[in-house]
């Protein structure tokens, strides 16, 4: 009896429409993974387990009231920045990049923490200066954003740095960053692009150039793009059918369970499948924005809005990369790509959204 009541209380913090949409996406993901991993039951099981863990994290976080999250913001940010500094001085070099920190027990990638810690920190900052918000606060916020972004960019992990700055920027945007400043930033960004180009590493330059003409390097950097575009294009309107993708099953597609899983989906389910998937992503994003719009506090609004747009960004960047309109950056398709860490991070975000949605009455009282 008590357990049942406890269970009901726990489940009361779950947003049913959002959960339903997420479960639909996950179910689809299981089908795609089964195909992408050459019908490996072990891989399917492992993917499913990741999902269960991530769902558990989501339920847990959903039950944490936003106030607690608020108090977590500053410490999490400070720890995150310290870990990034640790990486910069003592990190492990993998594939020419210093991204990992060996804590003895486990290796962690502190930039992953920053994906949540960053919007949390900025939301916390704006929440605290809600009453006295001035232009300089945007400046301070921008500085708070710049520190970890610079550290991650230095690793070098430009993709993650851009994603972190995007999630931070979304907080500024929802906090009311004046349009003129945004336009000014945009202009400054455009103006600095030629300069920034020279600061890019060779391989990063190559990725951008490869995007413009992948055939320049068909067996090197362009291979991923060429093969994924062939997979997508040959899928046509209705796809080749589940488990029928030749690009996938004949081993032409690289990274087909992780970053390029969308190419598998596209090949087997075609344009129709893509439209459905986009619709599903859009529905999740709309639901997230609805939660943000009706959130009771500024902190909750900023968190909900920023996390939702971050989710959108991952999805857009991944699909844009696979379909050949964005450079190849290591961004998985949220909830569809194989990989436990990314899945937990994303579901943790949705846990926060659900917490925001279901703790409003408590807050008001």
């Amino acid at each position, binding site marked *: 009896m008590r357990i049942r009541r406890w269970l009901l209380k726990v489940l009361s913090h779950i947003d049913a429409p959002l959960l339903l949409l997420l479960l639909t996406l996950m179910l689809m993901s299981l089908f795609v993974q089964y195909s992408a991993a050459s019908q490996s039951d072990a891989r399917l099981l492992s993917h499913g387990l990741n999902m269960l863990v991530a769902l558990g994290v989501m339920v847990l976080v959903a039950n944490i009231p936003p106030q607690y999250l608020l108090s977590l913001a500053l410490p999490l940010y400070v720890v995150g920045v310290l870990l990034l500094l640790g990486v910069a001085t003592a990190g492990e070099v993998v594939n020419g990049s210093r991204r990992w920190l060996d804590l003895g027990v486990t290796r962690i990638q502190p930039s992953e923490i920053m994906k949540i810690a960053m919007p949390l920190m900025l939301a916390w900052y704006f929440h605290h200066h809600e009453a006295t918000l001035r232009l300089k606060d945007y400046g301070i916020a921008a500085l708070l954003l710049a520190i970890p972004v610079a550290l991650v960019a230095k690793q070098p992990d430009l993709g993650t740095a851009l994603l972190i700055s995007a999630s931070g920027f979304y907080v500024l945007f929802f906090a009311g960053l004046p349009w003129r400043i945004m336009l000014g930033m945009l202009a400054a960004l455009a103006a600095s692009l030629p300069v920034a180009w020279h600061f890019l590493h060779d391989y990063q330059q190559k990725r951008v150039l490869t995007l413009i003409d992948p055939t320049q390097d068909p067996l090197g950097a362009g291979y991923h793009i060429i093969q994924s575009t*062939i997979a997508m*294009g040959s899928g*046509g*309107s209705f796809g080749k059918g589940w488990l029928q993708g030749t690009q996938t099953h004949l081993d032409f597609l690289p990274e087909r369970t992780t970053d390029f899983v969308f190419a598998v989906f*596209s090949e087997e389910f075609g344009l129709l499948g893509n439209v459905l998937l986009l619709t599903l992503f859009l529905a999740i994003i709309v639901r997230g924005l609805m939660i943000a719009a009706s959130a009771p506090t500024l902190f909750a609004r900023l968190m909900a809005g920023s996390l939702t747009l971050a989710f959108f960004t991952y999805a*857009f960047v991944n699909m844009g990369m696979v379909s050949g309109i964005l450079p190849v950056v290591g961004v998985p398709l949220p909830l569809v790509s194989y990989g436990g860490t990314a899945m937990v991070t994303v579901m943790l975000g949705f846990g926060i959204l659900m917490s925001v949605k279901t703790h409003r009455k408590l807050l008001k009282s």
Partner: protein
Amino acid sequence: MSRPAQLRNYQLELAGFRQRVVIAAGFVVVLFLLLLARFFYVQVLEYQRYHTLAENNRITVVPTPPNRGLILDRHGVVMAHNYSAYTLEITPSKTGDLDATINGLAQLVEITPAQRKRFAKLMAESRNFEALPLRTRLTDEEVAKLAANRYRFPGVEVKARLFRQYPLGASASHLLGYIGRINDADLKRLDEEGVMANYRGSDHIGKVGIEQSYETELHGITGAEQVETDAGGHAVRTLSRINPVSGNSLVLYLDSKLQAVAEKAFGSYRGALVAIDPKTGGVLAFVSTPGFDPNLFVDGIDTASWNALNDSPDKPLLNRALRSAYPEGSTIKPFMALAGLSYGVRKPSDTIFDPGYFSLPNSSHRYRDWKAGGHGMVDMHKSIVQSCDTYYYRLANDLGIDRMHAFLSQFGFGRKTGIDMEGEVAGVLPSREWKAKRSRQPWYPGETVIAGIGQGYNLVTPLQLAVATAALANGGIAFRPQLVQAIIDSRTGQRRAVLPQVLNRIKLNPADLQVVVAAMEDVTRPGGTAAAANAGAPYLIAAKTGTAQVVGIKQGEKYDARRVLARHRDHAVYIAFAPADAPRIALAVLVENGMHGGTTAAPIARAVMDYYLLGKLPKSEVLKAPAGATGEVHAD
């Protein structure tokens, strides 16, 4: 903390926030529409293009090499065939650290230093991206070990392949030749001949001998398999296939046992023997000894074996029957006698006195006879039976070089015989034109004199000599020497005969011929130069002995001190045909440093004729058929 004063502010803020949410939603929709437009472009507008690309990606045409045709002797004994075995192959371009890979493999299966060296040599000669054999003939156990460890070695494969094998080993090696891996020169030639496509998937090609000259028949037609492959090029399944057509098999005129008898008869002598069926030109035996084991060459010979063969003073790689030209010596005499009769310069009964030398008019230079003191009164018959030099010095002088050249060239001297094997040399049948071209000097009468006994400029290959002898045996009808008598079509199993080809019909007066043949018969009888070797033969033998002077040591040859003298000795030359009244075999034998034709070359010829005509093996030892030389034969 309640702040009622800011309530309005809060409402305003919320309105502002909601406005931004709507803008964000618009932003999301716009970018999603951008993605959608991209999907539409790629999946609908450009569908056909990517569909084609995907098909090309997954379908590869893999050539399937045909089985090489067999080579059989006249009785169906297999002389070259294929067997299936497992090989360990490495594609160097797909292997990271080659040395580490080979070392790793060496821990699983035995890899000898010689095999490593051979592999290194193959690598230096190979085409790019080619899989090269490291070990051949793996046992089942080795295959299992390698299969279990394959994942450790990228670029390493165990393949089932057909191998060429020559079951008779070194026997008839110069005739069969061998196949070897296709090299750049072969590729260039295939390209020029426009048959490159048929060699996709083939690793081997005939390099010398019949394997080379009948390459087109033996190779067959390459098939093709359309296979679905993955990006690594591994076949996943076959979509369609065109079966390869096996190469056609060859049936030789050669009798492999006769060949073995002949080779054995040479003992430790170097030399050559060509035996021909005078009625067809079919080559019954083709010896160049020492030979080599052609099996060594099939998958690339290792350096040590190659050096041993290549540096040997015995020159085992030299096809003496085809490529070595020697002075024919006295074996020219029957032909000279015929020339004298044909031009009416001599009658059989014309007699000369031989004082032991011949001198040109107005010259004191003496051309010596081999017999000091001379043969006394000599007619044509005696000149052949005793091989009188003086008779032929004079005859040559009376004929003149022009008539000699005109007559002798009818027998094929100085010209390639056109045998169905590549690499033949033409030898030399001297003439005024030939000498003018060679040295811009006039022809001297003295040169005619020595040409009359087959010395001087005269050079002839054992093959040419055999062809000329066969023509003599066949009443003047010269056939092109032919190794292959029939080709068995691999598809129909039908036997297609290779028709004998007449080279030349020499106009000879049968009575003249009878004089010469009768004299040649007496060569093998008591009093003749080849009497001892032919004693007791139950069939008639016509023959002529000869001796070819060894002028000197050729440049670059290193002789063992003990052998220097031996290598200076004259070569023994010998021609014969039998039965003389109805010839079935004609042959020419050359024994290097064998001194006199009658003592070293004639016994070899006798052994060959005895076996061919009587089925009799030499008394001293019963020849055993080499292992694998018997058994049923199939055309495929």
